[in-house]
């Protein structure tokens, strides 16, 4: 059980604020006078400063304070926003991020430089290098004086004091705590009953106070009303200790200490009260650490497995009541699983929004004009998928901009708009989400791809390739040249890593490109990683699961056809030849083929193969369990699942099998 740590909450919050600031700044670029965005950025900086100072991020608070001050001039309309200013604030924001990550990092010089730039951009005075953090407001309890003093106070509160929440009786109580008081109320200003405003205050007071506390303690009582009230304080006399006023046991320090210690001790003693305070009146949103969701998901997975065992037991029982209960449990666990899935879904906006900054920076870096557009940002995807996709997408977008988009002059010459267009879109299609990165640049130069692939030995000179095969070459390890790697350094992934990541998510990459018109790369990824719809099949005596999203159709393979095709392993499917794999051979089951074998045709986008199985058992919703460490080299299977009867079924790795099938086909082609 983890308790919330304010500093951790602050870090999360800071990350959100950075998004808010960055988003505001980038929007501002489209409309430099947009006051809403200016306010949003200012508010972000302001909150960051305030919270930063609260939690000991002093360097951050100080730095942000100066940025806020500079930006305030924009907010007040003294300076108008400009692209340079936005770039300065963005750079400053990166520095703030660094200060959140490493509060004591030694980068003050960088900060000073950024502040100087920022101040130059808003035309302010030169940056003051060192910066004073607003100190914690003084909390020193008043030191007790050694002798008691008698004061004569006369005060009248503003007539709306009570309406505004000040309780005069509370003030009198506070005075009484300072020492002995003699209080007289002056009722002379109280009007007749018919003229009385119930919330108004008409009474004033005269108080004679004898106290060991200094004058400032009296001022403190009235601190909130000081400016609006009439207050006269006159010192009458200093006297020796008097009865009724308890002199401090020992002078100054211990008293002060006590005042400080007491609330703290109390706070420590009752921290569990925080937990109790969540009596159902909390905010509508609850923050939950991601790993708890993962745990819950795990449990739900176990429950689904246990439930399918129960269903199987109940199915073979004649006990009507058991069957009824089992059906209820089945329905409930199904609903629970669906709810759980939804909990893990987050909109892709989270993923997309970070590209605005990337594109902004790249545009400045490359001198290209780029318009980034989004579509379907509200599409929801499993949180893990989003996290894992971030780096590959960054790479793909960089690639589009680096290699795809042309410089403005080049574009004009080609009859296009000056600024290039990059579209990031997401949409749901069945159990998959399709994320597309589309640009209107120069497209992929097939000759260059081929030349490069031949030079690096990926294909034989003169080898015939389908267009899709040729384009997919850019995802081969070793395809990227050294120059590209340097260019993209820092982000650290190549196109082959992109492909691997997507495949690890059980996804596929499609690539389309038209010379001169642009390229489009689509990632098709399952919506969730934890549970899949599968087709349960039998091969020999073992059960296997094929992800349903990859299944195109199922056909019967008659014994004669099987014998006839031996050595060729192709079936003809609506005028095209589809290679197939006999899983019985692949798994070396050593069993005789079932007389009614089936072919399950699976595909990933443009490539497909058939898998010959003995029997199709049916569809099966499957909780995926990853393979143990000992089996991590196994490539044919992507995981395992537990069936209703408690037995284990392996999940076939569709992408691997398709590759095997395609290779077989290539070998046959080469041989024939």
């Amino acid at each position, binding site marked *: 059980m983890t308790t919330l740590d*304010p500093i951790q909450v602050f870090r999360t*919050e800071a990350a959100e604020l950075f998004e808010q600031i960055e988003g505001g700044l980038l929007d501002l670029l489209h409309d430099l006078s947009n006051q809403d965005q200016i306010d949003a950025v200012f*508010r972000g900086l302001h909150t960051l400063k*305030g919270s930063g100072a609260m939690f000991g991020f002093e360097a951050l608070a100080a730095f942000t304070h100066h940025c806020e001050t500079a930006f305030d001039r924009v907010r007040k309309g003294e300076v108008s926003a400009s692209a340079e200013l936005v770039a300065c604030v963005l750079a400053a924001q990166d520095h703030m991020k660094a200060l959140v990550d490493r509060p004591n990092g030694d980068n003050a010089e960088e900060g000073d430089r950024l502040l100087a730039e920022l101040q130059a951009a808003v035309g302010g005075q030169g940056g003051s290098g060192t910066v004073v953090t607003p100190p914690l*407001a003084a*909390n020193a309890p008043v030191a007790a004086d050694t002798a008691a003093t008698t004061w004569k106070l006369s005060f009248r509160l503003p007539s709306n004091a009570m309406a505004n929440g000040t309780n005069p009786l509370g003030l009198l109580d506070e005075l009484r705590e300072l020492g002995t008081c003699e209080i007289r109320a002056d009722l002379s200003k109280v009007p007749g009953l018919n003229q009385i405003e119930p*919330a108004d205050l008409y009474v004033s007071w005269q108080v004679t106070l004898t106290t060991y506390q200094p004058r400032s303690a009296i001022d403190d009582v009235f601190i909130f009303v000081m400016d*609006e009230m009439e207050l006269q304080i006159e010192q009458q006399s200093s006297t020796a200790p008097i009865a009724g006023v308890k002199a401090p046991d020992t002078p100054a320090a211990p008293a002060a200490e006590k005042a400080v210690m007491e609330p*703290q001790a109390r*706070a420590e003693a009752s921290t569990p009260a925080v937990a109790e305070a969540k009596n159902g009146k909390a905010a509508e949103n609850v923050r939950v650490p991601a790993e708890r969701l993962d745990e819950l998901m795990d449990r739900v997975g176990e429950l689904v497995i246990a439930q399918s065992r129960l269903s199987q037991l109940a199915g073979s029982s004649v006990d009507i009541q058991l069957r009824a209960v089992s059906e209820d449990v089945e329905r409930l666990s199904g609903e629970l699983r669906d709810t759980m899935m939804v909990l893990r879904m987050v909109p892709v906006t989270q993923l997309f929004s970070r590209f605005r900054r990337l594109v902004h920076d790249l545009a400045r870096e490359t001198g290209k004009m780029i318009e980034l557009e989004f579509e379907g940002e509200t599409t929801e995807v499993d949180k893990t998928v989003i996290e894992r996709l971030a780096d590959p997408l960054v790479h793909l977008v960089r690639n589009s901009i680096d290699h795809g988009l042309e410089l403005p002059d080049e574009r004009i010459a080609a009859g296009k708009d000056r600024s290039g267009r990059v579209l990031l879109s997401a949409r749901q299609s069945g159990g998959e989400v399709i994320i597309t990165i589309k640009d209107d640049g120069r497209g992929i130069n097939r000759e260059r791809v081929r030349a490069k692939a031949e030079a690096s030995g990926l294909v034989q000179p003169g080898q015939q390739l389908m267009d899709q095969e040729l384009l997919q070459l850019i995802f081969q390890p070793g395809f990227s040249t050294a120059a590209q790697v340097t260019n993209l350094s820092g982000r650290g992934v190549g196109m082959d890593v992109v492909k691997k990541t997507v495949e690890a998510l059980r996804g596929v990459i499609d690539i389309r490109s038209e010379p001169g018109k642009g390229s489009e790369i689509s990632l098709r990824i399952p919506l969730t990683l934890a549970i899949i719809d599968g087709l349960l099949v039998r091969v020999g005596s073992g059960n296997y699961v094929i992800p349903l999203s990859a299944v195109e159709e199922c056909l019967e393979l008659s014994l004669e056809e099987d014998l006839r095709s031996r050595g060729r392993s192709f079936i003809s499917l609506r005028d095209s030849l589809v290679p197939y794999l006999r899983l019985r051979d692949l798994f070396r089951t050593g069993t005789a083929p079932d007389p009614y074998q089936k072919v399950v045709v699976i595909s990933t986008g443009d490539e497909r193969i058939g898998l010959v199985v003995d029997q199709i058992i049916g569809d099966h919703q499957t909780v995926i369990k990853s393979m143990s460490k000992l089996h991590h080299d196994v490539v044919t299977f992507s995981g395992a699942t537990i069936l209703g009867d408690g037995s284990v079924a392996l999940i076939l790795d569709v992408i691997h099998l398709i590759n095997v099938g395609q290779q077989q086909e290539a070998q046959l082609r080469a041989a024939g």
Partner: protein
Amino acid sequence: MSAHILTVDDSASIRLTTKIALTGAGYQVTEAVDGLDGLNKAKAGTFDMIVTDLNMPNMNGLAMIEALRSSPAHTGIPIIFLTTESDAEMKSRAKAAGATGWITKPFDPEQLVKIAKKVLGK
């Protein structure tokens, strides 16, 4: 029955700190995430005191305070505002809007408790 305090702040970390301090001192705390949320919760519930930030999205603290004070049911509820600037202008604007008192950020949790006690009485 412990006093019930509504805290209004768009910063989750400040809300948490405020809540820890106040619940630690035995108060009951309800949170709101911005001025509008604060106004709605204040109208829907019964609170002994409100602690609010000023600079917030949707509805800022000043507007919330004004809206509350214009409703007879919320006359007299102490409203303490949090402000990062010890800026006199902001203070007087908030006071004019009907706030009872203020606390300057960054603040010590103890200081907040002290102010709560001061405003709510013992």
